């Protein structure tokens, strides 16, 4: 029995073919190394040519830039919120449906902002990848 997602550093030695009706369960860790290379055309291009190398570098750079921009945007929003909480005098006293505004903001209001950031990021990151794919296939 070879079970439980036990990651194994050594490849599993080839065993006798499994009996009909039963499928051998293999740890994903070891299997990842056995898989026929999942490399796509785009990955091969990336690895073999100087142009490919440049394209991968620019993909990584644009993804990193995107991540940093959205992350800093989120943190800036959080920071502004904290500042409002601390330094705007009327804010703490303001109540909506009997709930003070600070509680409403920190208890519920932050989450839609998190969701919006995540959604924007996923859209933009997918777009970056699609652009990269188009570039490689045109080549």
């Amino acid at each position, binding site marked *: 029995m070879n079970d439980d997602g036990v990651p*194994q550093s050594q490849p599993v030695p080839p065993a006798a073919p499994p009996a009909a009706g039963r499928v051998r369960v293999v740890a994903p860790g070891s299997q990842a190394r056995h898989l026929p290379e*999942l490399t796509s055309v785009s990955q091969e291009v990336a690895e073999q040519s100087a142009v490919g190398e440049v394209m991968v570098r620019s993909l990584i750079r644009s993804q990193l830039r995107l991540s940093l921009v959205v*992350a800093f945007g989120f943190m800036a929003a959080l920071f502004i919120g904290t500042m409002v909480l601390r330094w705007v005098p009327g804010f703490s006293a303001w109540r909506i449906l009997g709930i003070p505004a600070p509680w409403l903001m*920190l208890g519920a209001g932050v989450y839609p902002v998190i969701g919006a950031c*995540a959604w924007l990021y996923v859209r933009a990151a997918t777009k970056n990848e699609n652009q990269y794919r188009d570039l490689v296939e045109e080549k």
Partner: protein
Amino acid sequence: MNPAVGFTAVIAVSVITALIGIYGLRVSRTTSDFYVASRTVRPWWNASAIGGEYLSAASFLGIAGLIMISGLDALWFPIGYTAGYLMLLFFVAAPLRRSGAYTIPDFAEARLGSTGARRVTSILVVMVGWLYIVPQLHGAALTIRTTTGLPSWVGAVAVVVIVCLTVMTGGMRSITFVQAFQFWLKLTALAVPAFFILLLVTGTAGTLPGGPLPAGTDFFPPSNPPGGGSMYTTLSLLVALLFGTLGLPHVLVRFYTNPDGAAARRTTLIVLGLLSIFYLFPTIFGVLGRVFLPGLAEEGTPDATVLLLPGALVGGMGGSLLTALVVAGAFAAFLSTTSGLVVSLAGVISQDLLGGSVRGFRIAAVGAAVVPLVVALGTDSLALAGTVGLVFAFTASTVCPLLLLGIWWRGLTDAGAVAGMVVGGVLCGAAIMLAARVGVDSGWRDVLAQPAAWTVPASFITMVLVSLATPRRRSPGAARFMSKLHVPERPLAHPGPSR
């Protein structure tokens, strides 16, 4: 409280967990190879499973308890726990899925081409996991003591025994289904009582056992002391929570069940939605706890708020049922997080020390669970959310820089990674230990008790500087590995490899 309620809930949740485990096991044996089956896990299932594993004692009991103590400031904890997944989405989710690494040490070895770096990472990951299991066991001890009146150690031992049995018999192979079930159980266990209590409190239905509330009751009394923690404490806590999440050992494994990088992103998006909904409820419990059970904070058991509130406000049979539901949810939280951690730790320990055999995995699983049990029995429960916050600070100072720089910077070398992790780990550990010895009035106390704001940058800077000083140690395979991390896979039209 009637002890039978607590017993019934704990036994029921354990039996249901085992049954789903066994059923899911049969499904995964008869359909196809487990791994391929897991590739077809829908993002919804997967996201529920991630949520199930992530929402621990700190989320289920700790947040409400912290609101009891520190009021408004406690709300930064759920924000940090959720936003941690945002950072995971931005910087780690898709590349890590593509890396093919199953554990963080696997990633370190593949990226840095060094077994030394792998060893150091393994040690740190095991430490993080142990530290994270301890508060889960404290939570279990508290729950059993509060609801059944048995001594504290029974709860901790029960969780360890159940987790060891399920992991060792292989029941956790169907972990996705178990964890997904436990997420929805936890959400129901908080949402349903919260709903009933809110109906009572607003006077829409029924009356409170203590008669109607006096007019003018303030549900949001100002925190005491007003203003709460300093700006530094909040900032440092956020750094720890935001960057600690992406280094947790059990989180990475779950992402592996996504078919590709893009699906890993979609899954994270759903996880964020699920967490956002979940965290509304501990807040409701905390706010109501401050009004109706103010004595708990003074007795030193604020973390019991969630367990006691339904029984205190809803009388009779209804109250017992709601209490049973909450206890079941709490136990699901301890079981799911602990088993997720034990599985991932056992993987790391058995691979690095015991040669990766199945027998080694079982021995490692027991070791992974028993060491924190000893620590938990020898220590007192502090505020659950606070303890877990410190684990996040440690992770953010060690594993997080390795992952972020490893994924995004070609220049990282094994020497740099090891130096950075050691510096971050030592600084963070020393600060937390010193904080316990420094007087309450000392100006250093905040800086030491919440160290993430300076230990995380220290670790990053060390990693970068040492890597720049050792450019010859760059792994020759790094460029190839980096392109594997970031280049999108074939479009999904291609079926997975048939075996």
